[in-house]
């Protein structure tokens, strides 16, 4: 049985269905991210696990123990808030040592452990400052140290890096990951930044409108999205219309490329689209893999790779990414003709959005 089990969780705030039948299992020591756009219910799910929000239906178990009626203080969790929620009247030392003090840890031992935690999150020398006397990044570290001070078995983080600027963010996320790995703590991490989620998670659960659309390893999500939303949300992609040829085969419109439909077809009359990542499109290949011909509309050189926008005629466009080394030395002129190919094995067919 997984360490954290969330089964059929539903929560409604008045008109808004914040959680819609959410099921998710997190193994002990696993790092799982909840990824989704604003208002999709990530925070609500995390807060339900912490016990700050009581679900309308469904059940949560932590370490095999049902916690639905358990107060937050009894759930053995650490929580990192988006706003850090550091106690403004306590120093860094008192903030970090708060959980230990509550557990009756002696003053000497507390001092020693706070010292260690400060070292672990690189806060040496700041222990006697108040929260408003340290920087945002340092506040974030204090919040993290405070959350792990009582050595909880489950760590919950709600967009802990969203208030920081990009550079610190990239740096801190790796620190969080390595710290969590060292402690072996099971972690649920909320973010709306897909790059962040891809970089640090064992698994990602993509959420939309209160539902988990797909959960899986970053690679799996990237390479085998199961819905148009996930394909578009994680990385960049080209979406092409397809014609079904019967059975589980289909052909991309205006191209000889045949692709196969996913194994479990969801419902009849459901429309499907093909998703092809820009880096999976090539300028040469087998004739059966021909996607079409077009003209170069725009070229962006990005160092190791170059992105090219190709117009296929009409409104249809493709975003292509070539390794820069493979391009002619003089580059690609605008208006140049290109024939593009794709390997059907790298094309995923996903259900289209629900028709409104």
């Amino acid at each position: 049985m997984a360490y954290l089990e969330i089964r059929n969780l539903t929560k409604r705030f008045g008109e808004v269905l914040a959680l819609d039948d959410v099921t998710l299992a997190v193994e002990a020591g696993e790092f799982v991210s909840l990824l989704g756009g604003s208002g999709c219910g990530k925070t609500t799910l995390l807060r339900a696990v912490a016990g700050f929000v009581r679900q309308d239906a469904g059940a949560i178990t932590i370490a095999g123990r049902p916690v639905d009626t358990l107060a937050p203080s009894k759930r053995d969790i650490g929580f990192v808030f988006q706003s850090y929620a550091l106690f403004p009247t306590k120093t860094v030392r008192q903030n970090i040592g708060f959980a230990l003090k509550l557990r009756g840890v002696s003053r000497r031992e507390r001092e020693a452990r706070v010292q260690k935690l400060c070292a672990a999150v690189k806060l040496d020398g700041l222990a006697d400052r108040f929260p408003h006397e340290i920087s945002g990044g340092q506040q974030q570290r204090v919040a993290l140290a405070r959350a792990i001070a009582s050595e909880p078995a489950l760590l919950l983080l709600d967009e802990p890096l969203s208030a920081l600027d990009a550079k610190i963010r990239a740096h801190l996320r790796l620190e969080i990951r390595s710290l969590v790995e060292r402690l072996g703590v099971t972690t649920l991490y909320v973010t709306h930044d897909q790059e962040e989620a891809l970089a640090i998670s064992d698994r990602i659960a993509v959420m939309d409108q209160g539902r988990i659309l797909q959960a899986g390893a970053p690679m799996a999500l990237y390479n085998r999205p199961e819905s148009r939303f996930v394909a578009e949300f994680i990385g960049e992609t080209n979406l092409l219309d397809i014609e079904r040829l019967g059975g589980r085969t289909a052909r991309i419109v205006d191209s000889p490329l045949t692709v196969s439909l996913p194994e479990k077809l969801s419902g009849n009359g459901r429309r499907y689209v093909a998703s092809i990542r820009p880096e999976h499109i090539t300028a040469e290949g087998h004739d059966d893999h021909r996607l079409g011909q077009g003209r170069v509309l725009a070229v962006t050189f990005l160092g190791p790779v170059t992105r090219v926008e190709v117009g296929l005629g009409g409104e249809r466009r493709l975003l292509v990414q070539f390794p820069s080394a493979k391009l002619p030395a003089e580059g690609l002129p605008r208006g140049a003709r290109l024939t593009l190919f794709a390997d059907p094995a790298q094309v995923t067919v996903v259900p289209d959005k629900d028709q409104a």
Partner: protein
Amino acid sequence: MRPRPTHLRPSHLVFSYLVLAPLILFIAVPIGAVLLESFRIAGPMLPPTLYALTSRAVDRLPAGEQTAQIETWVESLTPRERMEASAASLSLIGKPVPWDRKANFDQQIEAAGKAVAALSPGERKEFDARYPLAAVMLHKRIPLAFKVRDRLSEREFVELRTGEATRYGLDHYLAFLHEPRIRNAAVNSFMLAAIACAVVVPLAFLLAYGVNRRAVPWPRAMRFVILVPLVSPPVIMAFSALLLFGRQGLITKELLDGLLGLIDAARTNIYGFKGVVLAQVLSFTPPAFIILDNVLSRQDGRLDEAAASQGASAWQTFAEVTLPCALPGLVRAFILVFILSMTDFGNPLVIGKDIQVVAGVIYDEMIGFCNTPLSSALCVWLLLPAGVMYWCLSRLLLGKRRFVSAGDLSAPPSLCVPVPARAGLSVLALGYAGLVFCLYAAVVAGSFTRVWGQDYSFTLAHFLPDLAVTGFISTHQGMGVVWESLMISAIGAPIGGLMAILAAFVIERLRPPGGAFLNFVVLLPAILPGVIFGVGYLVAFNYPFGQKSLALTGTSAILVTNILFGNMFVGVLAARSLLQRFDASIEEAAESLGANLVQRLVQVVFPMLRHALVLGGLYVFVDGLTTLSSVIFLVSPDHMLASVAIFDFASGAYYGLACSKSTVILCLVALVMLATGLFERLGPRRVRALAPRSA
């Protein structure tokens, strides 16, 4: 703060100071006057000063008469008077008087003759030069004063006639050392303030906590009930408590004494110290509640959740997080209640039997003896403990911690208060609200009752003076006094609102040199108790600049200005915070399009500040109907205010009249607030339309 505009045009400067001058005149001057007055002591002049004054007066005698007149006066002196003149002359030339001034007069006269004869020739010459004037100074000063009265200033005349002059010193501050009455009052005031703080601050905190954590039933209605006394007539809590628990009280006399026979209402009743405590607790809980409500409603609920996720129980969260974060509010509430209690004379006078308090002494000294210097000094004494305490408390408790929360990302608390605490808070809040409700019900009932405690039959006499109870004659018995109050409020409100937003505009936008100081001046009445503001007006505007013709005392203008400037800070604060939200570039845009200052004000600023205008005006209006502490020193038989009349009726035990006027005022206030609320709801579309542009 943004830097001051570098190029302040002369016209703007003139406009700024025109707007700000009244603030100096009507706020800073009276408060300064109290301070000055508190050091003023009238006492005998020192001989050299008096001699100089006499000599100046003698010079004013018609030139021809001078010598002859002085000779006549000197010759008319008795031997004893001559001896005294000799003694004075000797000390004027700097020689000690060589004989015993306490011996009998014959001996002294003889000794004086010898001492004068023993002078060296040089000394003798000086002595002779001083002697005639010294004689006049000692014995003929009064005839001299009247002779040259026309040629002296009023002040010189008085000083010459009485031989006394004003000097400045700490005497009034030290009065409590040798006046047992004041010492006793100080002890009582201090005890009352301590008890009021000890009860009110925790009570208000629990109520605010219950309301904000939704741990009490109907939190919004509860907040409303708790705040109603803020817009009520003065001493309403004291006399309504008497209606229920007094000698003639409904509960004490009718229920416990008459029906159940448990007590003797004539002996066991609320009068005295406990009554004052009750009345003060009920009166000061609402203002303390406002402060704490404000603090608690801004607290970040995430902090509670953080504590809970760390394993803190509800109680530990309260003690470790909620309470420490509310500390600044608690300190402020504590100081506020302390000041309010120290400066409260109404409640002790109405329900205190003969408990003497310092504020009561001030009231007596002002109303009875017009002793402004002593009253002023006592006013300053009232502030001192609170000031010292504030300083100490902020040092000790608050230190360098900061209490603001994360702002945008903070959220209201989501965790529930545990059931037992919820039950306790509910009982407390319902009990409190129930008591307040009963007291107000008693007031309304009292206004239709013939004689409370004796004749409970229905009557309208308290509203209609023609049906008045016989045996009591007061010019303020009818409703006329309420209309007078209403008039004064209605005049003051629009002026106050307008002046407030103009002042805010000048302080916030034009930023003339000295603006920060004026901002402080506007806020002074918010901090200083009304007693000081009232005494200050009396001191400053009785003989403004020594001119009786400029006197404001005894007019209704002094009432309007006092109420207006005493409450202007509300409008100024509201307008300033609005101005800070709107970008100054809106007005600069208007100006770049060619609008002058007046157009800028009328077209752009006023519509923006409409809410502040209404709020500032409303505050002045409500205060005009309900204030007591400052205006009580300023009313006159011709210009009475309903709130003062209510206080007079209540302290004279004419409860029917106090009740009926209170009821009418409560209705008026409710009406006006309702109307303002409607107006505000219908109105501010233009303001909202402006807002996005500034964002």
